[in-house]
């Protein structure tokens, strides 16, 4: 059971990593922006945005996947437009899996960053402004470093969630080995057949190892930051 990974398993691991990485990386800027908008600004429709962000958490994943299919699919309005204008296609492609994972993980990321933003003392930002830093610079040099623990927490939640996401992904982009078959899809497949458990467990252990590695890395970075800010 602990022999080396088969090529198929390798492909699933690599794909899962790729999907989770991009889902996390590309949703970070949006997550930051949304968290900021929710924590700091007041605008009409703020609560609508807030609700929207939480939606993937509330909806069963298959529903989210189905909605994604309707919007970002070949025939979907957004999907068609993206395909026509930018040549970006999500259908049956790993990018679609990344999109699904990103959307499923988005509420987790936004909440974590938002909590951190709300904890930042605006007086420090004021101080930076009097020293000549414009809004974007204040953000880059003061706010951003101060919310780093929150960003890290958000990113790791998103990454872990992306590693485990399955329902929305398989509904949206189906399960094509090597293209959209992530670890969870593979696990699911094994669980569906009698006697598939040992293989499923193998994959589960792999997924857990990968995600925990990322988690511990993030903890380590986060402590390093805390130590730096804390004292000495």
């Amino acid at each position, binding site marked *: 059971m602990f022999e080396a990974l088969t090529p198929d398993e390798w492909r699933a691991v690599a794909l899962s990593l790729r999907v989770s990485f991009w889902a996390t990386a590309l949703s970070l800027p949006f997550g930051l922006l949304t968290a900021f908008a929710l924590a700091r600004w007041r605008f009409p429709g703020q609560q609508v945005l807030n609700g929207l962000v939480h939606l993937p958490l509330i909806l069963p994943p298959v529903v989210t996947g189905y909605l994604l299919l309707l919007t970002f699919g070949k025939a979907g309005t957004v999907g068609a437009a993206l395909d026509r204008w930018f040549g970006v296609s999500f259908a049956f492609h790993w990018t679609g899996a990344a999109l699904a994972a990103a959307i499923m993980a988005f509420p987790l990321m936004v909440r974590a960053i938002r909590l951190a933003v709300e904890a930042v003392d605006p*007086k420090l930002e004021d*101080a930076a*402004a009097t*020293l*000549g830093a414009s809004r974007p610079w204040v953000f880059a040099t003061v706010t951003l*470093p101060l919310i780093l623990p929150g960003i890290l927490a958000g990113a790791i939640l998103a990454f872990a969630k992306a590693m485990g996401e399955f329902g929305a992904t398989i509904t949206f982009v189906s399960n094509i080995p090597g293209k959209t078959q992530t670890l969870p899809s593979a696990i699911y497949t094994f669980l569906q057949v009698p006697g598939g458990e040992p293989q499923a467990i193998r994959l589960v252990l792999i997924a857990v190892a990968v995600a925990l590695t990322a988690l511990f890395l993030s903890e380590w970075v986060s402590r390093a930051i805390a130590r730096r*800010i804390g004292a*000495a």
Partner: protein
Amino acid sequence: MTLEIRLAHRFKGFSLDVDFTAPPGVTAIFGRSGSGKTTLINAVAGLLRPDRGRIVAEGRMLLDSDRGLCLPPHRRRVGYVFQDARLFPHLSVRQNLLYGRWFAKLGAGAEFDRIIDLLDIAPLLDRRPGALSGGEKARVGLGRAILSNPALLLMDEPLAALDEARKAEILPYLERLRDEVRLPILYVSHAMAEVARLATTVVLLEAGRVLASGPTLELLADPATAPALGLRDAGALLTARVIAHESDGLTRLEGPAGPLWLPHIDAPAGKAVRVRVLAQDVMLALDPPGAVSALNILPATVHALRMGEGPGALVQLQVGPEMLLARVTRRSAAALGLQPGREVFAVLKAVSVAQENVGGGPSGPMARQGPGG
């Protein structure tokens, strides 16, 4: 550089309504706790947008609520020393100090080394601000603001957390900023000694209103406003010119009020200085006293007399063309028959003039007294 400030702002339970012009030099904002000093300074820095107001710094319009203009803080070029230091916890002390320089496109230069040296923070440079002591934080905050190359300095009790010795080192530097760089400074302080030494102008706030404002010399020598500034700090300023440094450590000065001997003043002969003489340090005598330890005995004429509510009286004296203030008991005033026109002798000990009470004239060079006493 002139600074015109007109502001009106309301908090629940407090309203600020001020209108004054700060001439070049240091303008001290003086007032009791809660009188609106920080609020005023915040508005100048752009951190508070007042309900109404107009702030012009040498022609640069920082705020004009009538025209809907409000320059954001980062474009006002103010250096703000906060009452709470507000150091960036994620940056080292060095990075904190250089933060403003980065935006002013200046690096750590000779200026940097000088400030580090002056504030004695070299050993702290690589530390994070988190575990600094109160006074260390204050010094770094002071350095950060000064190093940001501001066009206007706002200081909210910058020296309150510092010991006297440290203060005595930093004050001459601030004087130099005022005089050499000709940096206008709004200076909040409760310490009248600092105010009297640094400030060209004093604005006295009470409950958000300007109670009195004007040149420091006049306000401090005016028996009418002196009680509001604190009787202990009442006193007048004499102007004088350094004549010679004598061998026993004294400096001889000559001013319109007459000759003065003071503990060594660190200014070259010929330089103009101003000397603050506290009202309580002036003794009056009808005849020139004989063998006493006081070195300065100035003939004077009583110009005005103001009886206090308690046992004291403030006596305004004409000494040559200048005014001196003396605080005596009512009993002594009666015993000496003090009344306007009366000729007396003002007796003044050289050592009474504390180090921080001698400073460069508002537009002259700085003057510093040497160590020891």
